[in-house]
């Protein structure tokens, strides 16, 4: 089981971070993501393989200023 922003999400073996974010409905162009507390650069979303029991935080980048 994974945790995304305090919600429980099913773990899928072999899934990359970008696939998980898309499965959860995020636009990967406009998010900042931490995996177990570490910030992940957008260019690495396709490379990071999500392990079971990981805690993920997703911060949506919103316009307006």
């Amino acid at each position, binding site marked *: 089981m994974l945790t995304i922003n305090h919600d429980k999400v099913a773990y899928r073996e072999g899934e990359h971070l970008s696939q998980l974010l898309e499965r959860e409905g995020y636009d990967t162009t406009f998010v900042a993501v931490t995996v177990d507390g*570490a910030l992940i650069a957008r*260019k690495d979303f396709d490379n990071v393989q999500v392990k079971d029991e990981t805690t993920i935080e997703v*911060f949506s*980048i*919103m316009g*307006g*200023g």
Partner: protein
Amino acid sequence: MSVAENDVRSQILRRQRPEDSELFGQYAVSILGCGGLGSNIALMLARAGVGKLYLYDFDRIEYSNLNRQNYTFKEIGQLKVEATKARLESTIPYAKVEAFACRVTPELLDQEATKRSTLFIEAFDNQESKAMALDYFMNHTQYSVITASGLSGLGDVRNVQVKYANNICMIGDFASSPEQGLYLPYVSVIASTQALEALKWMKNGGTYAQQ
């Protein structure tokens, strides 16, 4: 700074702790964007006695800015960075401000902006620029950046988060979008929080206190 300037400075900053004011005076801050966030943050940091401010924005003042940005009716059509610089200098006589009327790109950050300060405040309006700044500073961890996302509508301050991750501090509700409208009371909560985090970063010696 001349003796007279120093005297004015210490009088203006009389209600701050002298050791804080002294410290703030040693730092330079770059503010990326001079809209609802940046125009207000710049004035807060100048008032607090921050040593040098660098302002970046390509845009000119228009009517729709006046509901939340720190400009006046008479300034319509002026470059935002020039109007902000003038406001800071007329409010705080010893403020050191440089204005750059240009679009902020990774190339500009690489070639110019990062030579001027180590602390950056992301105060852009549009989502693409915000993503660009986050991507840039995630790959340039020797600089610190304080970003804002989610500051629209008549928001609830209980939803505002301050998230620290390495060299990045992210502030906002991360959910509200400009379709909900942009209103100064909520925009300024986020602007104030960014300015507050900047001062705490200085007080903590150029790093975030909480991680």
